[in-house]
């Protein structure tokens, strides 16, 4: 059964960068990886350095608009599955799936129900999933993914950022999705805020598993819009994510 790791956090904290670096780490091994971009506001594909033209949102729209034009006895599950396989971007070391835009008006109960069944089987084909998830965790509450082994909340150094981590923990309690572990990674950490972050995390009872330092190389690439996937091994951010990956047993 695939291990499902979801990386979340509020916008701008660096969860997409963290996801990309975790994938970078995993791609060096032999595990079969599925990377999922589940946040319509971010750009995991670009951060990884690949292009994705179509998303699950697009194929859901396709199923919605074409359903009366398909032959009446079409097996819609089989069509949806094929369309889904078509949009999976197959990179040399990992597959990438983009959830894409939110649903339009109308009822998506049926197509979501089909999708859940298809995703359950698809996930079984991988050893590990890294999901870059928006903070509302919509795809989990919709049960497109039924469980999460490790939920990683990425936060910046602010108290507010750590507060978000706490809120996400509360959200998880309300959801039906089964979440085994919740961890926090502090990002953009400097020497001045390092101790304060550690203390605040402790205060809030959050399990802090890593502190990614401010990394000039990451900043440069972000500015230039270049992927982070090919950062050199001696990048401070890469090195810290490697340490985190070891702690997570990846």
């Amino acid at each position, binding site marked *: 059964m695939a291990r499902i790791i979801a990386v979340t956090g509020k916008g701008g904290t660096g969860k997409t960068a963290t996801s990309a670096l975790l994938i970078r780490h995993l791609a060096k091994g032999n595990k*079969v990886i599925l990377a999922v971009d589940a946040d319509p506001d971010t750009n995991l594909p670009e951060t990884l350095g690949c292009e994705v033209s179509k998303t699950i949102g697009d194929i859901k729209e396709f199923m*919605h608009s074409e*359903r*009366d034009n398909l*032959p*009446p*006895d*079409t*097996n*819609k*599950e*089989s*069509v949806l*599955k*094929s369309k889904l*396989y*078509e949009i999976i971007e*197959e990179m*040399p070391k990992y*597959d990438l799936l983009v959830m894409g835009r939110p649903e339009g*008006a*109308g*009822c998506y*109960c*049926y*197509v979501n*129900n089909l999708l859940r069944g298809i995703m359950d*089987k*698809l996930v*079984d*084909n991988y050893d590990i999933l890294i999901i870059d998830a928006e903070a509302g965790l919509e795809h989990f509450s919709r049960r497109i993914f039924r469980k999460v082994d490790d939920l990683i909340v990425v936060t910046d150094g602010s108290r507010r950022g750590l507060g978000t981590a706490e809120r996400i923990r509360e959200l998880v309690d309300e959801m039906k999705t089964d979440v085994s572990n919740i961890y926090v990674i502090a990002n953009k950490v400097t020497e001045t805020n390092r101790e304060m972050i550690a203390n605040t995390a402790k205060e809030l009872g959050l399990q802090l598993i890593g502190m990614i330092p401010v990394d000039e190389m990451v900043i440069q690439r972000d500015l230039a819009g270049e992927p982070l996937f090919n950062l050199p091994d001696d990048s401070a951010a890469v090195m810290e994510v490697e340490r985190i990956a070891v702690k997570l047993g990846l």
Partner: protein
Amino acid sequence: MADEFPFEISPMFEGERIRKEGMHVELAGPKSKGFELVRAADMNDVEDGRFTLIGPDLSDMEEGSRYPFAMIYKIAGELVETDLESIVERRNHEFQNYIQGMMHLNQRDDVWIRVGKEAVSKGLNSFEHIAKAVMMLFKNELPFIEKVEAIYITDMSEIEKEIDNTRAVYKARDERTRGLHDEDVDTFYGCTLCASFAPTNVCVVTPDRISLCGAINWFDGRAAAKVDPEGPQFAIPKGELIDDASGEYSGVNEFAKKLSSGEYDRIKLHSFFEFPHTSCGCFEVVGFYIPEVDGIGWVDRDFAGTAPNGLQFSTMAGQTGGGKQVVGFLGIGVNYFRSPKFIQSDGGWNRVVWMPRMLKEKIFQDIPEDIRAKIATEDDAKDIESLKSFLTAKNHPILERWVEEEAEEEAEEEVPAKAQPATQRGFAAPQMMQMPANFMPSMPMMGGGSGGVRIILKNAKVTVEKITILKED
């Protein structure tokens, strides 16, 4: 039995995905061409177990390459008939996926197949292995097939030669499928996907009635119920036919009681006024009775304006939704307009007087020709008065009802003990024209058997000089 093949065969391989990296060859699919086709043939025309390959075999295909691919199976047997072709064809998908190291996706001329490297390295080097395995499964699992032979094509020009014929076969099949009606089947399907927000909803899907959300047709219900009978879609044995015109079945009524937890015990599938289908919350279109013209208007989710009754889709949906059986409103899926049984017990299309232009354009071809021009849109009528003028000018069949109703009223006036004042009833009532925005139209007196009248007035201002209600002798 499986020992003779260089691969394992089991349903457990069904979900197996072959990634680009692990793939030896890709066949057909979105970047190439192909199809699968099952044809019923005469016993003499099928050589049992025979396999023919036109084009290069697996062993000729380089790792990582892509080829067009067609699979034709000829089947014969005493019980084999053309109608079974598509059912058998669907099983090709399943059986090829049972083969370890094979991935078969989609259907018909959208098929997409991959053969894994690992399977090839274990000795899968000819399509003959695959075809023989599938033919074996056909005969084992579908005993009515007495003889089967397979022809696989991997040559583009040969596939192109065949593809038009194949598409013609698909098209003929679709036409037959579209000709399937409620009376042709003994099972309908129910769906509870909406049950969380419409707990008393009773969704019944039949060949002539698509689900209200528009997503589930009878075939979808059948497919889902077969895979998981306890799932959200399940079989409803239709039972005895109680009334043909309105589509009332004993089996549906029994399920109505069960699914609505006793709230409703009768549902007439093709009726607007009497025991109509419940409305979930996901319906694409809502129908509304317009008492002033004794007709029915329809408004869809995409129409943001107000219907001639002064209400918007959202308002009507709010009052109707949640799984209620509300006489005077009815939620439907767009495809129900295409049903030959469309509200047939209430006059069908002859009762339809208004719908938004976009919706009308969408289903234009499905509206009976003689009434197309007579149904008003927001361009023709924005309120009751202009709707009446339009219907009158176009000589809409609804006018016949007006005449009948007027005659009835006159008759009623002669027997004052029985009737309400004429101005209270018909479409001519002047105070009805300034309907407040959230006025819920009351229903006209229903014919016998409906067990009384329910009148709901919300925020209504009704001025009456005198009302006399007398018990009938």
